[in-house]
Every structure is written in C-alpha cells, then in structure tokens.
C-alpha cells in the first residue's frame, strides 16, 4: 500500500526529469549520485554493509554489488530507498533529491532487459 502511494505521488516527477535530460545524461548523472551516496555501502570491496547483506541474502543468485544487477525495477529501487527495510534506513529527500533518485534509477536499470 505504502509503496503504491509512493509511486502515484511521484509519477509526475519521473516524466518531467526524463523529458528534461537525455537518457545517457541521466545515467551519467545517476552514476555520480550513486558514487557519492550509495557506493560506500553498496560498492565492491570489503566491509560494504549493503553488499555484504545482499550477498548473504541471495547467496550468489544475483550479484551483491547493486551496480551489477540487471533485474532491479524502478519501483523496487524507489521503495527500498524511501522506506525503511530490515537492512537499510529510509533515505530522505534532503539526502537524495527526487531528481537525483530518478537519475540513480536510470543508472541502476541501464543494463536491464527491455
């Protein structure tokens, strides 16, 4: 329920941002934001709490490093970022703006099967 209302609340933003920036630019911007705000916990290398948790959870079925995943949907990314989950605190709009979140979504879904 909560996730659904999230999506309806922000559908308008998605359209505006995507229209303003080309997809490549959006992916590049998303990479920047990802490196600054997500990578420290979700990157490769030792002692990254997010990566360690996902490795434990999925036991190799999907990569532990988020940027290597190809099955993350925009809805799922948005829900995990903005709501509390067992492994991750909500990330507020003052930390990652709506526009930056759209860019991160574009970056993390760049290799998804169409």
């Amino acid at each position, binding site marked *: 329920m*909560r996730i659904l*209302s*999230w999506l309806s*609340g922000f559908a308008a933003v998605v359209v505006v941002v995507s229209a303003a920036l080309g997809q490549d630019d959006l992916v590049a911007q998303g990479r920047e934001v990802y490196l600054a705000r997500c990578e*420290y*916990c979700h990157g490769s*290398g*030792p*002692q*990254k*709490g*997010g990566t*360690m*948790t996902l490795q*434990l*959870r999925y036991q190799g079925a999907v990569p532990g490093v988020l940027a290597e995943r190809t099955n993350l949907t925009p809805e799922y990314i948005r829900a995990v970022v*903005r*709501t*509390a989950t*067992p*492994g*991750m*605190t*909500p*990330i*507020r*709009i*003052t*930390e990652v703006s709506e526009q930056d979140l759209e860019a991160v979504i574009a970056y993390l879904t760049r290799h998804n099967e169409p």
Partner: protein
Amino acid sequence: MTIPPGLSQSQFDDALDEFRGVVGNDWVFTIEEHIEMYRDTSSPLAALGEQAIPSAAVAPENVEGVQGVLRVCNDYRIPIWIISTGKNYSYGGPDAIVNGSVILDLKRMNRILEINEEQAYALVEPGVSQYDLWIEIQRRGMKLWIDGPSPAYSSIIANTIERGVGYGPLGERLNAQCGMEVVLATGEVVRTGMGAVANSETWQQYKYGLGPYVDGLFSQTSLGVVTKMGIWLYPEPPAFRSAEVYVPNHEDIVPMLDVLRPLRISNVIPNSASASTNRGGPVEGGFGPGGGMPPGGMAPGGPPPGPPGWRCRLGYYGYERVVDTNWEQTQDEFASAIDNCQFVSERYTAPYNPDEMLSEAKLAAGIPSFQEIPLWNHGNGWAASMIVPFSGRKYWEFLETVDAFSRQFGRRYFGGPLHMHSPHGLIALAGVPGSATDRDFNERSREQIVQLHQLARENGWGEYRAPLSMMSEAMAAYDWNDAALLRFNERIKDALDPNGIIAPGKNGIWPARMREGQA
C-alpha cells in the same frame, strides 16, 4: 494528519504556510509518505502505540532559514525536534518525544567550511557526515585523520554534541570539539570560544575563550540549534597498530579491566578502547523474540552461542618504535595478570590503504566503515549505557547484580559492550530485547528496563546518553540534593527558551509550560 499540541487545524495550516515562506514549498514535508521517513521504525514504542508522530518536517538551507523556522515556532508555540542527519538509531532515530512535533531537518546545511591541514581542524555544518569529511580530505590529499562512530553516514556535529563515541585517538568526540555557532530558541546567533572575538583567527584552535565555558550547554541540548562547529582532526601518524586481546573465561573481565585502566589513563593505550563478550552477536533482521543476543548483552534463558570470555579492541599511533613498544608493554601486562590470553595485532605504516585493512583497524584509524549500517534496526529493544566505577571488582558486582535482576524476567545478563573512550570512565551497556509488533512482549520488556533504571539509581549508575524512550527515567538517577541539577537545567531552559519550543522532554528536561504532570 497529526498536528502540534494546542493548535487547531487552521492555525497549523497558517504555520505551514509561514514555514513555506521561510524555506520554500519543496522543503516543508507533510504528506504521510514523507512523514514516514522521519520515524524510527525500530522504536520500542511502536508496538506499544506510543510513538510520537511528527506533524511536519522542515528543512532550511542556512542560518537565516533556521531563524525563520524558530520564529514561526515561537509565534505558534510549536515544539520542534532537531536532526542533523537523523541517523540516531538505537537512541531514537529521528523521533521526537512530543506527538505532533515539527522535525527541523538540517541535512541541507552540508557545507564543509574549512579544513586546515596545518592546524588539524575542520569547520562544518550539521549536514556534513563523517564520510563527507573523510572523502573531501582524501580528495584534497591532506594528511589528516578523522574519528567517529561506526555508522559513517551520520553527522559530525550531531554525534559530537550527543557526546558520541569514535574508536580512534579522538574517540571521545566532545573532547575534539572546538568552537560553535548556535541559533538560540529566540533566534539570536551566538558564537562560542574564540568565535566571539570578531577578528580572531583562532576559533578552532582554542576552546574556552573568556568567562564561563558554555559549549557544554549545547551538547545533549534543548537550548539551541548548532549550525557550525569546529572539530579537531588527527595528523596522519607514521605508523599505527590495531590490536585485540582475547581472554578465555567470563571472570577474566575482572583482571582485564584492571590491566586496561592504568594503560588507558596514562595514555599508553591512546584510542577509545572498547570491550565485549565473545558470546552471541548480531543477527540479520534484529534481535527480537527468539533472536540472538541483543547488543545490550541480555539473552533469554541459558548462555547464548559462542565461546565464553571477552575481547577488547585497542589502537596505537605514532612512530613505529613507540607503537611497538606500547603494544609489547600491553601484552606483558595482560600476560602477567591473566592465563592464556591471545593477542592479535597488525601494524600499518603510511601511506595507508583502507582496502587492505580489517574493519577493526579501519575503526581504530577513523576510516568510515559501513559494515554495521545494516544493523540500524536493532530489533525495537531498549538499552541503558551506565557509567560504573572503572574497576574489575566493581564491574563484576555490576554484572552479577544486573544478572540476578534479569533472572526475575526469565532472562540472563552476560555483559554488554564496554566503552572506555573517556579514559577515566567505564561505560557498561545493558539492553532488553524488543519487538516491532508484539505489544505484550514490549510491555514486559519495558517493565524490565524501567526497573533496571530504578536499580541503576539505587546503585549510583547514571547514564552517559539516554535513548529517547527512557530519557526521564535516565535523568531520574541524577538525584543528588533533591535533583538540584535538573532544577538548574530547567531554569536555564526557561530562560533561554521561554516558549519551550526546542526538543521538549529531551533528557527529562521539560519547559515550564509542559512541566506539570511530568515525572
């Protein structure tokens, strides 16, 4: 929608319009999805139906914005709760005490105003995290170390003024604080220490200035909003050593503490040493009913899994020979006091490569670690962090007393983490497990933690920092001379915050208009 106490919906709507006039429409959050992000879902109060819900969150970008928000709060008598990065999990997260409070979110004030390599300090705003400062120091190639708590996405200012704990040589965080800028409840801006001398260049070099030293009033505070703060940094040492000592038996904690105390006080061990039992340990998804041993050292029934005994984490910094000699001396002291100690240590020399360090070493070197972030949800439990005499025998008495008490609740206490960041002080944690949904379970746990506070008061164990849901109970231990200190704090509160808007109830200090009926 929750609204602040004493306001009508239309008054609150007017106040929201005024907030929007101050910070802009985008930075006043009121819809449920946004409010949810300003709630601690690991709160023990959630299952009890007693968790305060914010009425709004407001995020100014600068000091003028903070002043504007406070003006509106004064006009409408709206209680606000301050967060810098809002990651105070296990002590209450972003939660306020009073239902309907407005959350003042300072994350947008995130400028690093200065990093001075020669004088080894930084001047930062509240939104700057440990990681933000560390990465900027790396980017500039400066030979400086920071220090800080294990969750590295949290605020340097908030953690420091909450009197938090790091694990390096500057681990007693408030000790490394030098100079503040504070917006008082009335909107006036004050700079402390040498910052009060208009032309000084020494705001971050000398703490005290002249006259009463007031910075302490703005730690664990409900008197003002800290908008800038100086923090001392540590010049990169030529070498450092991260070390651990393991002792095999439960009773070995007695000589372990007696060995540690003189080494810590004399600064042979210069980092904020910490110790914990070898048993139990964190489990994914928290520590609720049926889970593992909570961080507070409490377990149901018999001993939790894992070997008996204890371990402590130590750090040494400086020239290679000094680092080695002090570690050798530490091992000698332990070996002559305790049979079958085990020593584990690694020496690192500059230039350092964080990727090659173990997580213990990273913590001891102040390198942001993200290993513990997924443990942010500690299972909706409670903890008390009590200052007990720094003596093996006295600590053993504490442990046995808390264990005997816990058996009345069908639980056992095996000893929680011990912090020695303040070199003469020993802080002992004891926690009780909680549940996100089981009201009966939490009622029972609350009864236990409330009674533990009474036990603590009888034994003279005050807390160094209190979780939100037990702040008044924790302050009750500070009862000398008919709680003269609390009354002193209340007088200061009433003088500096006459409308009682900032963080009412924080650490059991209530403003006059809310004091009636508070224990």
